[in-house]
């Protein structure tokens, strides 16, 4: 072994003293020489100094220079030692491949999982939105305090007034967009007719977002108002690429939308995916005719975004818009109750729904990594016991404790950095899988990538991990007293290190408990969600979504019913009906109503219900059950009395006497339909929210252009899709189809986000369980190895197999028990962070806690069993002869 310390280190004070000494020696030696040659001492000294030159200057110069020399030397020594350590670490690790591979793989999994989840968190939550100064962007809703509808849509007329009166707000704009073609527009004259996903924007939309087009220009103010040249369209990047092959010449060309020519004025950049990814075109809201969406103050269908002016706060904007809303409320009776606004940062509005889930995942993977650290630390400790001799020898050869700790830490760092490199590879695969699993569930998913910040995170994590699992064993091993170890003759010691290893196993079990409790809670929540009765039977149901052209207004109802009837005659179709929005694909329309017997004062707001537009046979088709009365029949239309069906929730709440059927719902404006049936509750918006009071309206009596044809088939529903489509085209060959999907898919999507969270947390839970089991197994296996002699003696003295088994298993279960207790306390403290993602189960669910405790003890017993078997099989003769 080479010398560890080539030079003793010199402090600043030491250097100063050395320089002084050296100079003094020179002057004295010279003086003496001159005296010896016959000079008198005073003259001699004076001459020595003169010959020397500027002593003070030299002193300063030498001091400075020597300091540099010293620090350069230290750096050189350090690098030299580091290289030594590195070479030594690599050699050591290579000589223990099983340990090295286990450690690196464990760390790679831990770091990989963390990097993958972090890259998602970074892309979705941490990175600023892809707009200029995104912190200034807010979502704005009209607020109706009276009905507690604080996030209502905004009317385009209100928006115009906000915009005209704003001062703290730089700009504010609105848009109308519904997914799945809910806000589509028909493209014709360019190949097959196609339903485009369209955003209808008001003036201020692009201005507030602060986006500039990639090609062409944005619409001028006069192109966004009624009566202006508003037949203009802005293309999304992906539509421009798809339709125009990304040709700049697309700008200023004309395309036919809903049968009218629209001038293409601009193309948005690829990064502009607002408000959703599948948008094809941006069209002025002013082009929507009044018979589709009336431009009235009481029609609040727009979503709105505003940009706060430089130097103003969100609170300033809120205060200003509140004042304007109050003014409008006083001015217009239909605005009376909408006397304020709700404002939230745009970022929160976009990612709020997934925030808790993502942070829960990040927390869970952090636990996995902690467990990986603990595992590798115990491995290192176990190895440390074996290496005590080697280390004692190094210490005896003059290596200080700090030096040995550094050498051991270098080894940990090599492990953790190798784990980090592999971890990044794992993360790369993991992120791809994760995004595939989360398709459609994750806003901003396109912004997730393994970029510099994420790689920096992985690197930082690796270094931290290396310190975390390396420091404790390094300190422990380097602190081993010398003589004992050398005298021991290489068998290693059992004493003090054992307590530390026990502590590590307890910690590991505790961490596993927290992880598994989280996974257990999520699983129970998911099961509860699965057990929610959606109110319909989703199997064998296919839906075809289309929008009837407003040009058909005169024969709309005839067309609507002809299509349904034609589909009903198809072979393989059991029944068919229609609804405006399929469950989980959009909700109904909220309206007020007055149940009979309720007296409303002049300032009282009526209760609201969700109004759904359906056809006859809809309930039978989706497999809902009529609790009372009947559903709509084919004979009902414009000319028969207006009837409605209500759901159970509404019937129970407003007709507790059970007299719903036959009663009349007063809706004002001479609209007083009779209730002809009560249907079971159908989940329309989500599985985890309670069903709202709902009124089903006959689409033949109150029509909507958006139609979802629902068909129950005998065979695989998707195989029927083609025939259904052709049946529709046999009636109107220009009918565009927005989308086709099965109800099984719809239900699957409604559960996709909780399922994803459950699967991932479950995976982490299993990893936690495995690591915990491995920890216990490793410890006991090591222990049995170390104590073979003692066990041999016990057996020789008459202990039977059962005694030995009990001793070892008892040891494992005892440690696990301690870990479980700590873990349960930890879980109790942390699971409340899950509250936002749990359904139908409390974060402190005793069943889950108890089950996990039992599970971990059982796993511990199992993991102890194998080493215990080995111990019981110890042959006392062999064991005693061992040394």
């Amino acid at each position: 072994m080479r010398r560890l310390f080539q030079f003793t280190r010199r402090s600043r004070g030491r250097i100063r003293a050395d320089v002084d000494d050296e100079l003094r020696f020179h002057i004295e030696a010279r003086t003496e020489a001159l005296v010896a040659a016959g000079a008198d001492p005073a003259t001699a000294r004076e001459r020595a100094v003169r010959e020397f030159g500027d002593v003070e200057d030299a002193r300063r110069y030498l001091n400075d220079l020597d300091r540099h020399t010293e620090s350069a030397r230290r750096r050189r020594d350090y690098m030299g030692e580091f290289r030594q350590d590195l070479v030594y670490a690599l050699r050591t690790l290579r000589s223990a491949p099983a340990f090295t591979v286990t450690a690196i793989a464990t760390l790679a999994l831990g770091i990989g999982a963390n990097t993958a989840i972090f890259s998602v968190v970074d892309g979705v939550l941490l990175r600023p939105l892809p707009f200029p100064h995104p912190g200034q962007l807010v979502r704005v809703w009209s607020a109706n305090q009276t009905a507690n509808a604080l996030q209502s849509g905004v009317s385009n007329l209100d928006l115009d007034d906000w915009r005209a009166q704003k001062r703290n707000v730089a700009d504010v704009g609105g848009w109308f967009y519904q997914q799945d073609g809910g806000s589509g527009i028909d493209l014709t004259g360019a190949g097959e007719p196609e339903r485009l996903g369209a955003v209808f924007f008001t003036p201020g939309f692009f201005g507030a977002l602060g986006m500039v087009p990639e090609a062409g220009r944005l619409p001028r103010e006069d192109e966004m108002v009624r009566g202006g040249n508003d037949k203009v369209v802005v293309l999304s990047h992906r539509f421009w690429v798809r339709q125009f092959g990304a040709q700049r010449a697309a700008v200023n060309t004309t395309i036919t939308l809903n049968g009218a020519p629209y001038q293409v004025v601009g193309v948005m950049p690829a990064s502009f995916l607002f408000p959703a990814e599948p948008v094809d075109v941006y069209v002025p809201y002013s082009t929507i005719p009044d018979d589709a969406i009336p431009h009235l103050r009481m029609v609040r269908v727009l979503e709105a975004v505003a940009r706060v002016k430089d130097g103003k706060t969100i609170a300033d904007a809120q205060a200003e818009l509140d004042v304007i809303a109050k003014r409008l409320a006083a001015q217009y009776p239909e605005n009376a109750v909408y006397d304020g606004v709700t404002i939230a940062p745009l970022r929160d509005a976009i990612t709020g729904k997934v925030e808790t889930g993502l942070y829960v995942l990040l927390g869970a993977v952090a636990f996995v990594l902690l467990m990986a650290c603990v595992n590798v630390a115990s491995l290192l400790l176990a190895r440390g016991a074996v290496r005590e001799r080697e280390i004692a020898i190094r210490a005896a050869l003059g290596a200080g404790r700090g030096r040995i700790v550094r050498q051991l830490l270098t080894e940990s760092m090599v492990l953790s950095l190798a784990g980090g490199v592999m971890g990044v590879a794992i993360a790369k695969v993991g992120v791809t899988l994760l995004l595939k699993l989360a398709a459609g569930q994750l806003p901003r998913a396109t912004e997730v990538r393994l970029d510099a910040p994420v790689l920096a995170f992985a690197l930082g994590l690796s270094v931290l991990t290396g310190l975390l699992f390396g420091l404790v064993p390094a300190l422990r091993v380097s602190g081993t007293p010398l003589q004992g170890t050398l005298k021991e003759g290489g068998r290693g010691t059992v004493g003090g290190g054992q307590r530390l290893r026990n502590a590590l196993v307890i910690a590991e079990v505790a961490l596993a408990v927290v992880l598994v409790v989280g996974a257990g809670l999520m699983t129970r929540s998911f099961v509860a969600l699965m057990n929610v009765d959606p109110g319909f039977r989703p199997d064998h149901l296919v839906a075809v979504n289309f929008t009837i052209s407003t040009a058909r207004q005169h024969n709309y109802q005839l067309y609507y019913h002809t299509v349904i009837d034609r589909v009903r005659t198809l072979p393989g179709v059991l029944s068919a009906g229609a609804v405006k929005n399929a469950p989980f694909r959009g909700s109904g329309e909220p309206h007020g109503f007055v149940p009979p017997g309720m007296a409303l004062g002049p300032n009282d707001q009526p209760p609201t219900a969700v109004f759904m537009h359906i056809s006859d046979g809809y309930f039978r088709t989706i497999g809902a059950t009529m609790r009372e009365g009947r559903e709509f029949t084919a004979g009902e239309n414009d000319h028969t009395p207006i009837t409605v069906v209500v759901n159970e929730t509404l019937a129970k709440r407003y007709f507790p006497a059970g007299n719903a059927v036959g009663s009349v719902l007063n809706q004002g404006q001479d609209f007083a339909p009779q209730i002809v049936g009560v249907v079971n509750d159908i989940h329309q918006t989500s599985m985890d929210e309670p069903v709202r009071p709902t009124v089903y309206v006959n689409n033949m009596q109150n029509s909507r252009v958006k139609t979802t044809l629902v068909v129950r088939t005998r065979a695989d529903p998707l195989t029927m899709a083609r025939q259904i489509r052709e049946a529709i085209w046999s009636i109107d060959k220009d009918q565009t189809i927005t989308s086709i999907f099965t109800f099984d898919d719809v239900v699957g999507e409604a559960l996709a986000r909780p399922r994803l969270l459950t699967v991932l947390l479950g995976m982490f839970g299993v990893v936690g369980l495995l690591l915990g089991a491995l920890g216990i197994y490793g410890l006991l296996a090591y222990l049995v190895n170390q104590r073979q002699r003692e066990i041999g003696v016990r057996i020789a003295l008459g202990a039977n197999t059962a005694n030995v088994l009990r001793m070892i298993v008892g040891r494992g279960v005892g440690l696990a028990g301690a870990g479980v207790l700590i873990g349960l306390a930890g879980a109790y403290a942390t699971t409340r962070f899950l509250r936002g993602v749990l359904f139908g189960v409390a974060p402190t669910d005793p069943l889950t806690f108890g089950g996990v405790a039992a599970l971990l003890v059982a796993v511990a017993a199992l993991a102890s069993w194998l080493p215990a078997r080995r111990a019981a099989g110890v042959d006392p003769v062999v064991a005693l002869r061992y040394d």
Partner: protein
Amino acid sequence: MARQPMDLLQGTLDVLILRTLTWGPMHGYAVTRWIRERTDGTLDIEDAPLYKALHRLEHAGAVSAEWGVSENNRRARYYKLTARGRQQLREEESAWRRYAAAVFRVLEPA
């Protein structure tokens, strides 16, 4: 200073010191005496620049320093030529010889 003998060319001190140390480890005082005696006063060198040069050489790794005991039993800082110092001396010496030869070729009558 009254007398102004030859200016010391850059690096001259280094080569003188390195050469001096080829005789064995010496403390700074011995190095200055040695050089003074050898140059016989032709090069009027103060001691300070010599010490500076010694420490510069130490910084550059051409010499190493260690405390030792002097002839008259006092603590003195001894300088020793390192392998790198020997190498540097060889290079500088041959450069000096080439330089001096070139100068002489000009000065000596043909």
